[in-house]
Structures are given as structure tokens and as C-alpha cells.
């Protein structure tokens, strides 16, 4: 008896070694190589985007292309601001539009989707299953499907050519609601019950107990909506030049041949650096949210 027990303890202590035993060295090396090759494939265009943004024109057309510029210049950014300076709308105006759309859309989405996610996650009431089923089904088709009716609805409400034409549909995005609801489900019911016994109202429970607990999910909703709104060009929903977002202006500039390679890289650099930085800062909490993303 004692012998088998000792064995058990030993095997438990050896657990770490055992896990390693399930890994052959050959497998480790080949899988590592696989990661390296595909990692390079994934990173190469991004690294080139960053490096091209700081290259001078003659260095841009060198072959083989240098991974890192020898002479770092800000010429491309200067060219960019000159190109933009020639247009009759000041560049700051485009930036302001993008920031307005991105900020209000993101904040609105986090707040409004969370308000809806909380009852869906924690209460049973008539209509709950219907709404959640519709949300899950809406994940199964792309937003392009509803683009035409959306245009008609938005123009009938009278929101065409206002930032709201972009912001309101984005707030209703269903992926964020889905992830938030799944994440809220893991909040223990006892926490909500005890707050109720203490006399807190539903709204107070939501704002003071639930919302602080789901901060990781906020960050996820922020990055999902951010990437959608940050790069929006207004499409056919905004046509006034002074209301167009920055992505529209940048795209006009990027529409050139390879001679504009430096300017395009400068533009892409500006557009990618913001969401990527945000992701670097909040990565662990975003990943945490997705552990509850599962579907049945």
C-alpha cells in the first residue's frame, strides 16, 4: 500500500518531467522551424511597412530591399504632410473626424453592449433566448449583406452625411455583445445576490459590481470596434469632404503607383501603429476574454 502511494507521489512530483517526456526533441525542433518560417511570413510585410516609412527614395528602390534603413529620414512624412497641405481641408480636420467616430463609437459600444449582455448572461426572462439566438445567427453572415437596406434606413432617419451613420451601426455590432455576454456568465451569482440583499438596485449592481469585473472584456470590445472604426473611410454614408475620416484622405494619397511607395508606407505606418500599440498593452486581458468565447 505504502509503496504504491509513494509511487503516486513520485509520479506527481515528476509531472513536469513527464510533460517534457511527451515531447520529442525532433518534434520540438521541426515545429520551432515551422513557427519561424511562418512568423517571418507574417512579420515581413509589417516590418517592411515600418522600415519603408523611414527610408529615403533611393533606398526604397534598392534590391534586395533593406530590412532596416541605413539612413533614417522623415522625408516620407514631410511629403505626406505636403500632399495633404495642398488639399483644401486641413489635415487636422480629417484626424478630428476619425477620432470623433472612433471614440464615440467605441465608448458607446462598450457601454450599450454591456448593458444588454448583463441581463442576457444573468437572468431568465421572456424573449431572452430569442434575442441571444438572433445575435448568434447574426455572427454567421457578414455586414455586407445588410449594406443596402442599411443605406435606405439611415437615409430615411436622416443620418446620411453625419458621423452617426457610421457610429450607430457599429455600436450594434454583435460580436462584441456575444463576447461580453459569454464573459459575464462566469461572474458568480452569489455576488449579485448578496448585493441585492444589501439593497443595491439593478442599475447600481450593473455599474458598480458587474462593469468593474469585466474590464478584460472591455478591452476586447475596444480593440474589435477600434479596428473597424479607425480604418473606416466613410464609404457612401459620408460624402461631405469636411466630415470624411483620415482613412479616406490617406487612401486618396495611397492611390498611386510604386513611386508613392514611401508615402504609402508612411500612411500605413500611422494607421497601424495605434491599434497595434493598444493590443501590445492589453494583450493578456484580451486573450483572457476569448477563453469564454466558446459556442455550443
Amino acid at each position, binding site marked *: 500500500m505504502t509503496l504504491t502511494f509513494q509511487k503516486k507521489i513520485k509520479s506527481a512530483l515528476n*509531472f513536469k518531467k*513527464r510533460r517534457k517526456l*511527451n*515531447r*520529442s526533441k525532433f*518534434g520540438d525542433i521541426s*515545429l520551432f522551424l*515551422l*513557427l519561424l518560417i511562418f512568423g517571418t511570413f507574417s512579420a515581413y*510585410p*509589417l516590418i*517592411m*511597412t515600418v522600415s519603408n516609412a523611414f527610408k529615403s527614395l533611393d533606398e526604397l528602390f534598392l534590391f534586395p*530591399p533593406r530590412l532596416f534603413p541605413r539612413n533614417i529620414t522623415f522625408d516620407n512624412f514631410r511629403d505626406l504632410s505636403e500632399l495633404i497641405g495642398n488639399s483644401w481641408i486641413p489635415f487636422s480636420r480629417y484626424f478630428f473626424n476619425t477620432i470623433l467616430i472612433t471614440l464615440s463609437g467605441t465608448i458607446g459600444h462598450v457601454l*450599450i*453592449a454591456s*448593458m444588454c449582455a448583463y*441581463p*442576457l448572461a444573468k437572468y431568465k*426572462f*421572456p424573449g*431572452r433566448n430569442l434575442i441571444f439566438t*438572433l445575435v448568434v445567427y447574426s*455572427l*454567421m453572415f*457578414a455586414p*455586407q*449583406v*445588410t*449594406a*443596402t*437596406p*442599411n443605406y*435606405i434606413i439611415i437615409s430615411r432617419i436622416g443620418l446620411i452625411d453625419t458621423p452617426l451613420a457610421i457610429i*450607430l*451601426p457599429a*455600436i*450594434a455590432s*454583435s460580436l462584441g455583445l456575444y463576447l461580453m455576454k459569454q464573459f459575464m456568465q462566469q461572474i458568480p451569482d452569489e455576488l449579485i445576490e448578496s448585493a441585492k440583499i444589501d439593497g443595491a438596485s*439593478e*442599475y447600481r449592481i450593473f455599474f458598480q459590481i458587474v462593469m468593474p469585473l469585466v474590464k478584460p472584456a472591455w478591452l476586447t470590445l475596444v*480593440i474589435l470596434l477600434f*479596428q473597424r472604426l479607425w480604418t473606416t473611410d466613410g464609404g457612401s454614408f459620408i460624402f461631405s469632404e469636411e466630415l470624411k475620416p483620415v*482613412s479616406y484622405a490617406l487612401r486618396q494619397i495611397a492611390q498611386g503607383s*510604386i513611386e508613392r511607395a514611401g508615402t504609402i508606407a508612411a*500612411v*500605413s505606418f500611422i*494607421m497601424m501603429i495605434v*491599434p*497595434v500599440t493598444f*493590443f*501590445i498593452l492589453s*494583450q*493578456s486581458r484580451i486573450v*483572457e476574454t*476569448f477563453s*469564454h*468565447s466558446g*459556442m*455550443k
Partner: protein
Amino acid sequence: MQAQLTQPTISKKTRRELLWREVKKHKHSYILMAPYVILFFTFTVIPVFMSLGISFTSFDLLQPPRYVGLDNYTKLLLDDDVFVIALKNTLILAVVTGPVSYLLAFVFAWLINELPPKLRAFMTLIFYAPSISGNAFLMWLIIFSGDIHGYLNAFLINAGIIDNPILWLKDTNYMIWVIIIVQLWLSLGVSFLAFIAGLQSVDKTLFEAGAIDGVKNRWQELWYITLPSMKPQLLFGAVMQITTSLAIAEVSMQLVGFPSVQYAGHTIVTHLIDFGSTRFELGYASAIATLLFLIMMGANLLVRSILRKVGE
């Protein structure tokens, strides 16, 4: 089931009263949900039905819609040669990028999961960054550029593989492959994160138990322990990849142009954009949208029912 059994004994009126009492009891829930639900119905649920309705009409926004029956559908399926090309391209793109991106997302998540935390975070960033980098995929315009300055052409010429530059973005033999490569590069998005998270939350004691029960290598561990315990994430990832792979448009429009040479990069969504936003034939565009909706739902529900059965 129980509720159904007891129902016959309760009259219709009291049932309605009971329902009303339930609704009143959850007043707060409805108030909290109202803003989202209103927006969701306005911009997602109602448009699906509107799209179906408009697809039976001829409508250009200026004049009121005129009922034309199934005309749009018969024209689309029988007379529109470009739609046939778009449908073919969409299916090729979806059949390649859908499963491949799903597999890549899983395999990379699984490999990354073995790494020490700091390296793991770094590799996650490397693979996820393309999908959040906005316009950075335009870099591929330079890589695939048709002149000798394009990185790929320059590389192949220097290596002596080709003599003259290849017009990657204009030659119909290559266009669809360019779109596939760039789309795959962009495809490690939400489902990739879901897989990483799913792998991290697999109960570690299961591996211990598995090792005692005779799991010998990483492949057995993957098949018998890891995959079954992250099935919900796998289902979620499937939905994300299927929907994205059937909606490819932006990459095609930006890289090979809109319209592309001989429509070789034309997809259902670019066809929809053509009729919806450029020609303002909204009835016809809605017929395209409705078909696309049915294809997406069909593919998703089919794959979901298959995946649910796996391992049962």
C-alpha cells in the same frame, strides 16, 4: 418539458397574466437591453428582411420600388455571366482560405502555447498584428508589383528563375492566388485569439491523467485531450472563419482593382457593391445580398452540425 405538461390546465388568460408578471418582474432587464436591441434590430435584423423584400422589386431610391417577382433572381442566375464568375471565385476563395486559415489559426495557437510566456506573447503579436494593422496589407502591392521593382519579381529575376517581370496583379492566372495569400496573411484574427485562450484554459490535470493512462506523444495528447476540451472555441472559430472567407472583397478591390482584369478577382461581395453602391440597382443588389446571406447561413449551419458531431 414540464412547463408543457402543466400548460393545458392553465387557461389562456392566466397564462398571459403570468407572462406579463414575468415581464414586469424583469423590467430592469428590458430597460438595460433596450438601447442595444433597438439598434440591433434597426441595423441587422430588419435589414435582412428588407433585403429579402426589396429583392422582389426594381428600385433605384429615386422612384418607389416596383414589384417584379422573381425577375432579379432569374436574371442573376441565368443571364448574369459576371455573377457566375463572381460565384466561382467566391467559392474558390472560401474553400481555400476558410479551412486553411482555420487550420493555421489552430496550429499556430497550439505551437505558441508551448512557448515560455514572454515569447508566447511576442509570437501572438506577430501572428495577430496583420489583422489589426489597417491598410498595412497595401505593402503586398509593392511585393507583388508588376514591374522589376516589385520585391517578388526582383527576387525571382535575381535568382534567375524568370527573365521578365510577371504582372502578378493583372495576369488572370495569378490574381486569385495573390488574393488567397494576402487573405491568409490577414486571417489570424478573432478565432486565433479564441484558440490561444482555449488552449490556456484546458485543465492541466487532464494531461497528467492522460500521461498515466498511456498518452505517449504530443499528437495523442492533442487528439484525445486538447481538442475535445476546447470544442466550444473551435465552433466559435469556425463561424468566424467561414463568415470572413465568404465575404472577401476589400483585399481583392485594393490589390487587383475594381473591376479587376476579366473579373478574375470579382467576388459576390464586389458584385454586390457594384450594383448597390455604383449602379444603384438596389433590387438587383438585394437579390445578390439575399443569396449571399443564404450561402453564408447554409455553410455555417452545415459546418456547425458536422463539428458538433465530431467526438460524440
